[in-house]
C-alpha cells in the first residue's frame, strides 16, 4: 500500500491495530515494553489526528478526508469514511485523550484479572473503533463500530475494574446491546425502505433524502430506534442507571474513555443520524426530548450533590452535562448546535481531568469515598489544585473552556425554548454545589486522619494532567480555532432541518 495515498482516517485506525499486533509478540512478563508500545502507538495516532485537524479545510462544505470502498456490495454497504467539523473535533478529542489515559493509568492495568498486555490490546482496539465510529459515513459501518466497541469496553471494565466490576460490565453491556438491537431494527427498516424507493444504499448523504418518501409514522418509528440507542449511550434520564455503576467500577482511565468518548457517540449520533435522517420526526419529538434533557440536567445534578463516592459523583455530573448537550442539539439553532459540539469536546477534557485526578487520589488513599479525604490542599497542593481546576471547569467557571460551550447552549436554547433554558440555568447553580461541596470537604479544612502521609503527584502524573488542564484554560480564553471548525458543520445541520436562527426581538419601549 502506498502510504502517501493512504487516507489519514484509515491510517489512524490502522495504527492502533498494528500496535495490537506488535503487542502480541511481547512476552507477557514484559509489562514495561507493552506500555511503551501502547504509548508510542497512541502518541503516533494523536499526531495523525492533529495533522488532520491542521489540514482540515474550514471553508469547504461536506465531508473531508473521504474514502469509499465497496464492502458488501450485495447490501449496498460501503467502507466509507469522512469527517465534517463535528466528527473531526470528536476524533481529535479521542486521539488526544487516549495517550493521556495511557500515561495516567500507567499502573492501572497491574491490578487486573489479566496481564497488562490484554489491557493495552483492548485499549488499542477500542481506539480504532472510537475513530471508526465518528469517521463512518455509511450507516451500516457506523453500526458495526457502535456495537463492536462494546466488546473491548466490556472486558476493560469487567477485567480491570474494581469492586463489583463483573456486574457493572454486564449491566453496561446489556443496556447497550438492547439499545443497539433497537437500532438494528431501524437499520433494517432503512435498508428495506432505501431498496424500495430507489437504490440500496447506506450512504448517509444519499439517505438524507429518504425521509421525503417515508410516512410520518414510519419515520417516527425509525427515529425512535436510533434515538433510544443514543439516549442509552449518552445517558438521558431515565436510561442512565448503568452509567454510575460502570464509571465506579472501571479504572479511572477506562472511565475517561467511557464518559469522555463513548458516551459522546450517543450525542454525536443524535446529530449525525437522528437529525439528518429523520428531520420531521426530530421535530415531532423535540418537546419530549428537551423535557428529558432538562430533567437529566437537574436530576443528574441532584444525584451528584448527594453522591458519597467520588467516581459516582463524576458520573452523575456527566448525566447533567449530557442533558445540556442534548438540549443544545435539539434546540435547532446554530449556537445551540455549535455549543453542544464544543460542549462534547470540553466535557471530554474536564471529565478526563476530574477522573484522572480522582484516580490519583483514590490510588493514594485506597478509598473512593469523599468523606475519607480532607485537607489535601496542604498535603498535596498540586493534586488539589488540579482537582480544583477540573472541578471549576465542570461547573463552567468563566475563563475555563466549559463556560463558552455552556453559555452557547443556553443562548441557543433560549432563543427558541426560553422556558427550558431558564429551568436549565438552575443546573448551573446546582453544579456549583456539587463541585464546591466535595472541593470543600476533600481539599480544604484540617487534614483528617489517614491523609497525612499522602504524596503529591509524581512526574508521570503531572505529565498526564498538564496537557488536559492547559487545554481547559487555553480553550476557555480562546475557543475560536475549534469553533471555526465546528460552526460551518453545525450551521449545515441546522439549515438541513429547515430551521433558521430566530431573529432577536425586542419589545418596543416608550419613546
Amino acid at each position: 500500500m502506498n502510504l502517501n495515498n493512504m487516507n489519514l482516517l484509515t491510517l489512524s485506525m490502522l495504527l492502533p491495530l498494528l500496535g495490537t499486533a506488535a503487542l502480541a509478540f511481547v512476552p507477557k512478563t514484559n509489562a514495561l515494553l507493552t506500555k511503551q508500545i501502547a504509548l508510542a502507538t497512541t502518541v503516533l495516532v494523536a499526531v495523525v489526528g492533529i495533522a488532520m485537524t491542521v489540514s482540515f479545510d474550514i471553508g469547504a462544505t461536506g465531508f473531508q478526508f473521504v474514502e469509499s470502498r465497496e464492502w458488501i456490495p450485495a447490501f449496498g454497504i460501503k467502507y466509507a469514511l469522512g469527517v465534517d467539523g463535528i466528527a473531526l473535533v470528536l476524533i481529535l478529542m479521542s486521539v488526544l485523550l487516549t495517550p493521556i489515559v495511557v500515561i495516567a493509568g500507567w499502573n492501572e492495568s497491574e491490578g487486573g484479572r489479566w496481564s497488562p498486555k490484554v489491557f493495552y490490546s483492548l485499549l488499542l482496539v477500542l481506539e480504532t473503533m472510537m475513530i471508526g465510529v465518528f469517521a463512518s459515513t455509511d450507516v451500516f459501518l457506523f453500526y458495526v463500530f457502535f456495537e463492536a466497541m462494546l466488546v473491548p469496553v466490556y472486558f476493560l471494565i469487567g477485567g480491570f475494574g474494581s469492586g463489583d466490576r463483573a456486574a457493572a460490565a454486564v449491566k453496561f453491556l446489556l443496556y447497550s446491546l438492547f439499545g443497539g438491537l433497537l437500532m438494528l431494527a431501524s437499520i433494517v427498516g432503512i435498508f428495506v425502505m432505501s431498496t424500495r424507493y430507489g437504490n440500496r444504499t447506506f450512504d448517509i448523504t444519499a439517505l438524507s433524502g429518504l425521509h421525503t418518501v417515508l410516512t410520518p409514522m414510519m419515520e417516527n418509528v425509525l427515529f425512535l430506534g436510533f434515538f433510544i440507542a443514543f439516549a442509552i449511550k449518552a445517558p438521558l434520564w431515565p436510561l442512565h442507571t448503568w452509567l454510575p455503576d460502570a464509571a465506579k467500577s472501571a479504572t479511572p482511565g477506562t472511565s475517561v474513555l467511557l464518559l469522555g468518548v463513548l458516551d459522546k457517540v450517543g450525542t454525536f449520533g443524535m446529530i449525525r443520524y437522528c437529525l439528518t435522517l429523520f428531520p420531521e420526526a426530530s421535530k415531532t419529538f423535540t418537546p419530549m426530548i428537551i423535557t428529558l434533557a432538562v430533567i437529566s440536567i437537574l436530576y443528574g445534578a441532584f444525584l451528584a450533590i448527594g453522591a458519597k463516592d467520588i467516581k459516582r459523583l463524576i458520573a452523575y455530573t456527566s448525566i447533567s452535562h449530557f442533558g445540556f448537550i442534548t438540549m443544545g442539539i435539539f434546540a435547532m439553532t446554530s449556537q445551540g448546535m455549535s455549543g453542544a459540539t464544543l460542549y462534547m469536546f470540553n466535557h471530554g477534557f474536564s471529565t478526563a481531568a476530574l477522573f484522572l485526578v480522582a484516580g490519583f487520589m483514590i490510588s493514594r488513599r485506597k478509598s473512593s469515598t469523599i468523606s475519607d479525604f480532607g485537607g489535601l490542599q496542604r498535603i498535596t497542593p498540586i493534586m488539589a489544585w488540579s482537582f480544583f481546576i477540573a472541578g471549576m471547569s465542570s461547573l463552567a467557571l468563566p475563563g475555563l473552556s466549559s463556560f463558552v460551550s455552556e453559555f452557547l447552549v443556553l443562548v441557543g436554547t433560549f432563543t427558541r425554548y426560553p422556558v427550558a433554558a431558564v429551568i436549565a440555568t438552575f443546573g448551573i447553580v446546582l453544579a456549583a454545589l456539587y463541585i464546591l461541596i466535595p472541593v470543600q470537604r476533600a481539599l480544604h479544612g484540617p487534614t483528617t486522619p489517614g491523609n497525612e502521609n499522602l504524596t503529591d503527584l509524581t512526574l508521570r502524573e503531572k505529565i498526564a494532567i498538564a496537557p488536559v488542564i492547559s487545554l481547559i484554560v487555553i480553550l476557555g480564553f480562546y475557543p475560536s480555532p475549534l469553533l471555526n471548525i465546528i460552526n460551518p458543520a453545525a450551521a449545515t445541520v441546522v439549515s438541513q432541518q429547515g430551521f433558521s436562527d430566530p431573529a432577536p426581538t425586542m419589545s418596543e419601549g416608550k419613546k
Partner: protein
Amino acid sequence: MITFISPTLDYALLAPILIVLGGALIGVLIEAFAPRSARGSSQLFITLATLVLSLASLIRVRSGASTTAAMESVTFDGAGVLLQGSILIIAIISVFLLADQESFTALAAALPGSDEERTSLQQDLKLTEVYPLALFAVAGMLLFPVSTDLITLFVALEMLSLPLYLLAGLSRRRRLMSQESALKYFLLGAFSSAFFLMGIAYLYGYSAAVTFSGIHAAVIGGAGNGVYLLLGIAFLSVGLLFKVGAVPFHAWSPDVYQGAPTAVTAFMAAATKVAAFGAMLRIFYVSFAEAYWQWRPALIVIALITMVFGSLVAIAQRDVKRMLAYSSIAHAGFLLSGVIALNKSGLDASIFYLFAYGVATVGAFAIVTLVRDAAGEVTDLNRWSGLGKRSPWVATAFAGFLLAFAGIPLTSGFIGKFSIFSAAYESGSTAILITGVLSSAIAAFFYIRVIVLMFFKDPVEDGTSVVIPSVYTQITIAISAVVTFALGIYPTPLINLIQSTAQFLR
C-alpha cells in the same frame, strides 16, 4: 399391462451423494473385515477422503443445473449445490470430532454397568461404526434438500434420521441418559415421520402428484380441494418443524443434545439444520409459494413463539449443552423468518445463515468436548467458571462463538441476522423483525452470562480441567473460528456467490 420405463439418471449430478454412499459401504466392509487395530485410522481416512471427494465432485458439477438429475425426483440447482456444499463442509469439520473416541462407548451392545462393558473398557475397544453411520446420515442430508418428490423426500428423511438415532445413544459416560435420549429421539422422530407421511397422502389426494412441480401446478390450477392442501401442508410441516426443532415440536432437542455424545451433537445440530431447512425452503418456495395465505400466518406464529420461547428458556439452563440446545431452538425461529420471507433475499439470507450458524455450532460443541474432569465432559455451567483463567484460548474461542450466536458485529452471526431480518421485513413481516430483535436481546443475556462465568468468576477447585485439544479438535475449532470471523469481517465473496447462484428450479 404395466410397462416398465427404465429411469434415466444423471450420474454426474448425483455423484456427490453416490460417493458418500459408496464411502459408507466401504466403511461397513472395513468394520466386517479389517482387523480391529487398523479400523480407527482407516475409517477416519476413508470418511474424510469420501467427504472431500464428494465436495470436489460437487464443485465440478456446480453449474450443471437440471430438473432431471433422477427423473423428477431429484433436482440439481444453485440452491441445492450451496446447501449440499454447506452440509459437506460442516460434515468435514465435525468428522475430526468423531475421531476423538473418548466420547463414545467402547461397546454399544454391552449393557450399562455390565461385566461386558467393563471388559470392553479395559480392552480399550474403539467404536468405529460411528464413521459409516455418520456417512449414511450425510448421504441422507445431501439428498434431503435436493429431493423434489415427496417419496424421495421421505426416504431421505429416514436415511438421515436413522443413523442419528443410533449415534445419539453411543455416549461413553452417562450411558443410560444417552440411550434414553436416543429412544426419545427415535420415538418422537417416528411419530413426526408418521405425520409427514400423512401430509404426503393428503397432498397426493389434493394434487394427484407427489412431485413438487406437480403440486405446484395443482396449487396454481386451484382445482383441488383446498382443505386437503391445508391438511397436507400442515402435516408435512409438522415433520419438517420437528427436524429443525421449532416450538411446539422441540421437546426432543434439549434431551438429545445433552444425552448424545458431544461430537454427534455438534454434527447433528449443525448439519441436520442445514438439510431440514434446505428441504423446507425448497418445498415452500417451489410448491406452496402461491398458496402462501394458507400457511404463512401459522408459520409466522410458530416462528415468533420459537424465537421467544428458545431465548427465554435458555436463560434458565444450567447445563451448557442444554443451553446451546435452547439457543438452537431460538435460531430455528430466526431461520423460519427466511422461509416466511418467501423472496430471493430470504433464500439468500437463509443459506448464509445456515452455513454461518452451522460452522459456529460445530466450533462451540468442539469446545464443549474439551472441558472435562476425571469422569468425562463437564457440562454443568457452574463448573465452567474461571475457565478464562485456566485456559484463556479455549475460553476466548468459546466467547467468540457465543458472540456470533448473539449476532455481535464482526462475526458471521451479525451478517446472518441482519440479512434474514431484512428479508423478512422486506416481505412485510414487521412482527418478525421486532420480535426477532427483542428475542436477540434476551438471547444476548445468557450468552453474556456464560462469558461472565468464564472470564470474571474465579475457578472452582474441583478438578475440572481442559484437556489439551488433540490435533483433530484443534483443526475443527480453528476452522470454525476463522470462518466465523472471516464471514463477519468480509462476507462479500460468499454473499455474492449465494446471490448469483441460489435459486430453486421448478
